[in-house]
């Protein structure tokens, strides 16, 4: 990522204007904010451009923020093919990361139009883009693997009708010997609870090329996670045998710790996420129904200020808001 070069910075040389000085006037953006722009998903980038004129200038004229386009909540369902094209054109054909997270309205053609104009894309993340078809994805990946072989990482979890043959074709395009070597070096365990907390576009931190594989149990194309459970790790290291290496539908995993959960051990949180009994014990619980809430959905807890006790939304609605039999 070019960082220092974006706004005529030169390390160890001094600019005539205001490098290093405190803010010139109260209320004008600090230089640091210009640097932050390149890390913002599209929604926050647009918000920044409305804040004041100098930020808008930075957003409009600098190409750096547009080299990594990340569209997620709340823009994911507002992004149409046309808007995507308009946004992507700001990258001057040098788009590096295209992350469309759950952008259900994007079609194969809409995606391909962007791909055709930006052959240097390194990372293509389209999980949950249910408007895409497997062949559409293959067409995009093929284009990006043609001359420059730029595409290094891909996320396609959640695209409907992905089958083994499609995945094999994608492997063919993406898994050259070179990429395989590069990836083996940096691979980190892919743990369910970490993945759920991570922002989807930080996929490169896990060191893998494609997010999905064939589940050994059900043979569907799914995400398969590593297990932090000691015994599972030991089995894998000693015997190369991994019992729980299956997709989320074949083996449940705890939302808090990522460990595989046996049926007799399985608890359910207020948010309907799965918990193992160890994590269940540690989490605070609703005062009425005694169900816990996982860390991610803490906004489902309703409590009075200052109190650590809480009630879940379901119990709250059922018992505390003007239902017929409850006195106010």
């Amino acid at each position, binding site marked *: *990522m070019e*960082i*220092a070069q974006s706004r005529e*910075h030169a*390390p*160890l040389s*001094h600019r005539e204007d205001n*490098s*290093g000085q405190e803010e010139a006037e*109260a*209320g*004008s*953006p*600090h*230089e*640091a*904010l210009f*640097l*932050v722009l*390149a*890390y*913002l*998903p*599209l*929604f*926050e980038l*647009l*918000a*920044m*451009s*409305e*804040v*004041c*004129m100098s*930020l*808008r200038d930075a957003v409009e004229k600098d190409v750096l923020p547009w080299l990594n386009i990340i569209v997620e*909540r*709340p*823009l994911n369902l*507002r992004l149409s093919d046309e*808007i995507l094209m308009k946004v992507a054109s700001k990258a001057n054909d040098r788009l590096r990361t295209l992350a469309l997270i759950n952008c259900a309205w994007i079609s194969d053609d809409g995606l391909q139009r962007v791909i055709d104009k930006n052959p240097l894309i390194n990372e293509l993340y389209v999980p949950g883009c249910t408007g895409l078809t497997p062949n559409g994805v293959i067409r995009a990946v093929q284009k990006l693997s043609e001359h420059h072989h730029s595409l290094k990482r891909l996320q396609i979890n959640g695209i409907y009708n992905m089958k083994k043959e499609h995945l094999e074709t994608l492997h063919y395009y993406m898994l050259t010997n070179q990429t395989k070597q590069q990836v083996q070096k940096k691979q*980190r*365990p892919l*743990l369910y609870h*970490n993945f759920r907390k991570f922002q989807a576009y930080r996929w490169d931190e896990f060191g893998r090329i494609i997010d999905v594989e064939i589940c050994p149990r059900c043979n569907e194309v799914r995400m398969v996670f590593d297990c*932090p459970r000691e015994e599972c790790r030991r089995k894998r290291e000693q015997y190369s045998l991994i019992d729980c290496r299956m997709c989320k539908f074949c083996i449940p995993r705890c939302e808090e710790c990522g460990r595989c959960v046996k049926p007799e051990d399985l608890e359910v949180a207020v948010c309907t996420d799965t918990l193992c009994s160890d994590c269940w014990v540690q989490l605070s619980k609703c005062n009425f129904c005694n169900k816990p809430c996982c860390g991610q959905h803490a906004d489902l807890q309703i409590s009075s200020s200052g109190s650590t006790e809480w009630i879940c939304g379901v119990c709250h609605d059922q018992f505390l808001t003007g239902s017929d039999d409850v006195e106010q």
Partner: protein
Amino acid sequence: MSMAAVETKKITLRTADNHEFEVEEAIAMEFSTIKTFFDENPDASEDTIPLPNVTSKCLSAIIEYCKSHLAFRARETSSSIDEQVRTYDEEFVKARDNESLKELILAANYLNIKALLDMLNQAVADRIKNKSVEYVRRFFGLENDYTPEEEAAIRAENEWAFEGVDPDDD
């Protein structure tokens, strides 16, 4: 990088407010700016390096960060190390207010420490995640210098993105 004799080599850095910091060479080499400088001027290693764009407060925080991350990297990669790194980064950022974060970003940019710069920028980005324009203004203490007409024009342009957005929690 060859080490001189048995002792670890120290590099002296002088900050904008005239404090001198002695750091181990390994840490100074985390600052790509300094590394490049030494690569091009190998005889300069005894000199004190001036850092007119970095305050002592920033530099000491940055040195702490690089020290810790070097230590993490020296250990074998595992998911528990990853957790520790993540926790460390979260703690590093959590207590600092926006002003210090912005200062650190500029310092990290000047010294060209990619990992730290990424982490800090990401942290600031997370602080304004999903927030409204007004919130961002207040958060950074920025003034709206648009005329009402300009503002209306821009809002119309981005209308597709902001219509029906939920109000902020605060």
